[in-house]
């Protein structure tokens, strides 16, 4: 049986599943329940200057029958007394010494405040620090959170202050509310951060009440942009993670992957793209801490099936698979094939291809069931039909190479090969 043991900057945890800095990790009662459920570690909800929260705080996006495909929040950092948080952190560490305890920090924007806060937190026995440079609401107006993460120079300065005082590993959490996460990532790595984590939440408006015209979440007739998270942001997070995992400066430090991780499969994907572990929040907010049970079992079974003994056997395995467009093999071609035995005649492939792709599916009228077949000469292999098909493996893509050898766009141009042939 594979080992799920994780070692992130020397912070050990029985599995790579940490709870992200958020409401599920804001007090002892939650954190103990999380540890009892099996979570490998937590990042305690951000400590810093005193704040006051508003009501309401969350809103979400549903898709079809699925609730909370995306969640946004306008909650601030911890609004509990600092001393109480520190006391509870210490107690949790004592009760679960084998779990990772990282504390998220966002001090006022001066060296002294950071140094004082770090000292107090280190006194609890915490294993690491995570710098919250990502919170996109409330704190930015005071020059904190994303206001730091969005400016590589300020971020660099704060990390330098932190590194002067910190004696335990420091992870810097990046905001996605930038054109690219790489500049800030490079800047903080150069300033000495030991690791990176990403992404924080994405600024968003989840929807508007069509009767009151007030966007969500509602606060006395008004709203503000909230930080978006949950399954909907996973693809964006994976992209940003990849850019950090591929950059020669930022890929020198371990990365903790965050952004819509809900299942063991999601976790594997983050890890394949370079994350050493993952942090979870929305899925726990949706279903409770119990989701970690399947995450552990699923990852274990998958690793056994693949023959991976440790997490390091597969971390980063897919990073090099994401390349530049001009390096793609133009001679690769595949064509959709519809399995007539599996086809349920819903016509979704046909109408998608007809209206939105390359008119490559033939409709033979039948009552009540039409027959759909692929016009192989027309099919560009775009995948759209396969994506809309409701039956698994009914539409498969069959390889029909244009030529056996690898040919990229640059060489294609050099050879003066014909364009517009499809």
């Amino acid at each position, binding site marked *: 049986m594979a080992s799920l043991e994780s070692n992130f900057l020397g912070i050990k945890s029985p599995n790579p599943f940490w709870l992200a800095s958020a409401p599920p990790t804001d007090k002892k009662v939650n954190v103990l329940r999380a540890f009892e459920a099996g979570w490998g570690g937590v990042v305690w909800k951000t400590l810093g200057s005193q704040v006051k929260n508003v009501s309401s705080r969350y809103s979400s996006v549903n898709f*079809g*029958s699925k609730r909370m495909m995306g969640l946004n929040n306008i909650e601030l950092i911890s609004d509990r007394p600092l001393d109480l948080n520190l006391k509870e952190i210490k107690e949790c560490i004592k009760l679960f010494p084998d779990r990772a305890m990282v504390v998220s920090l966002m001090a006022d924007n001066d060296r002294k405040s950071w140094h004082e806060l770090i000292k107090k937190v280190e006194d609890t026995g915490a294993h690491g620090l995570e710098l919250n440079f990502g919170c996109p609401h409330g704190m930015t107006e005071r020059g904190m959170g994303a206001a730091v993460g969005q400016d590589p120079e300020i971020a660099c300065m704060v990390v330098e202050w932190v590194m002067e005082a910190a004696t335990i590993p420091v992870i810097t959490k990046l905001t996605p509310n930038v054109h690219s996460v790489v500049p800030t990532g490079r800047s903080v790595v150069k300033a000495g951060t030991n690791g990176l984590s990403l992404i924080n939440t994405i600024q968003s408006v989840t929807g508007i009440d069509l009767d009151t015209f007030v966007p969500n979440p509602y606060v006395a007739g008004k709203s503000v942009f909230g930080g978006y998270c949950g399954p909907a942001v996973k693809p964006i997070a994976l992209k940003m993670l990849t850019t950090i995992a591929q950059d020669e400066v930022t890929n020198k430090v371990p990365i903790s992957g965050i952004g819509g991780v809900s299942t063991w499969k999601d976790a594997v994907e983050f890890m394949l793209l370079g994350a050493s572990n993952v942090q979870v929040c929305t899925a726990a907010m949706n279903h409770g801490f119990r989701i970690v049970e399947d995450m552990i079992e699923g990852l274990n079974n998958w690793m056994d099936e693949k023959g991976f003994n440790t997490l390091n056997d597969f971390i980063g395995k897919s990073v090099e698979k994401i390349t530049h467009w001009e390096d793609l093999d133009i001679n690769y071609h595949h064509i959709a094939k519809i399995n007539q035995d599996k086809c*349920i*005649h*819903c*016509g*979704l492939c*046909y*109408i998608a291809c007809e209206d939105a792709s390359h008119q490559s599916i033939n*409709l033979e009228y039948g*009552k*009540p*069931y*039409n027959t759909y077949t692929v016009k192989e000469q027309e099919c560009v292999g775009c995948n759209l039909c396969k994506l809309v098909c*409701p*039956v698994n493996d009914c539409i498969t893509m069959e390889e029909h190479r244009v030529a056996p050898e690898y040919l990229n766009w640059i060489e294609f141009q050099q050879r003066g090969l014909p364009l517009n042939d499809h």
Partner: protein
Amino acid sequence: MIQSNRLTKEQYTVNFSDIHPPFETADAALVEANRCLFCYDAPCTKSCPTGIDVPKFIKQIATENIKGSAHTIFSSNIMGAGCSKVCPVEKLCEGSCVFNLMEEEPIPIAKLQRYSTEKAMEKNWQLFRRNEPTGKKVAVVGAGPAGLSCAHVLSRAGVDVTIYEKEAKGGGLMTYGIAAYKVTPQFCEDEVNYILGIGGIEVRYNQELGKDISLTQLKKDYDAVYLAMGVGIARKLDIPGEKLEGVVDAIQFIYDIRSNGFSSVPVGDKVAVIGMGMTAIDAATQAKRLGASEVTLVYRRTEAEKPCTDVELDIAKLDGCEIIWLAAPLKVKGSNGKVKQLVCSKMKLGEPDASGRRSPVDTGETFAMEVDMVIKAAGQVPYEKLVKKYKLDNKNGKLVLKDKATTNIKGVFAGGDAVNGGKEVVDAVQAGKDGAKAILEFLKLC
């Protein structure tokens, strides 16, 4: 013994409560609406005789555009509310739902259709507006599904319509000929009123063609006439004993249940129902639900040839009705003028007949059933005398059309059961639409 008032009020209420209850909540409807795949050129739509755009109306439920959903349904089928309760969807839309091909439960299309249309009726959303008056007048004979459907399309086009109905209520067999646990008389009345809500349609009740009104006069008074009088008389068995007290016609039996109230309808203790169509099932199940202790359906062919659907047969079975296949009634024996026995011939299957079904052949053997009531549900016959009197082309009384709606008499159109001999409500609604289209073309209004 045949008697009324066999059960308590509570028992009648339970026995005749809605067999297909609606969604309890909007959320329940949403779950099912969201399951719909939104098929293209959808098999469900193609399997609906009125061609309702099913994926569209279901999508509209999912987007909470219920008004739009109801409009989509009623645009194709103005009796979409009633059809959602009485259509044999298992052989139409739901029967062809692609989920069946995945061995999954089909989308509950009828239930979703009921969800939207019931809301529209409840809130009296009038979703259609009449065009400018054209000054044209059309007479419609019969306020059943075909007549109402035709009248509604004509009214939308700006034609003034007068419907002549021989009964005291509209709705036709929907109102008078369908099991009360499928549609209540109140619902039928509400549905007729909702349809008439568009305006421009006057219904004159208790006006029977050939008795109170004549085709000649209608032709004179109106720009066109649409005949949708349906079928009337129950097919006779032509066997000895048919006149005995206790031999009743299924349509009359159902009519009485719907018109007079459950407790006042007499029913036997041991009842034989002859036939295996939808009406036979409705008669048998309701006889049982009125308190008969034994109800037996007698059919001269086998289950493979039965006209009713499996779902309908299951209702009868679940109600505790017995079924005897391959039995043809030979005679009804009586005592003191009352039914005592039904004697049947045992049949076997022979060669396929004109309908393509293997026809029953008498084996010469007989058997007798002790019954005190015989309900005849062997189909209805058209108004043969009437149509012959008016020299309308017909085949055994069923009107013969030149196309989908035109009779041999200029300006006279027809559709529904009077033409097809008796099909589903949804078929009659489509016939009404075809009739209206032909009339509008005849009047040069389209």
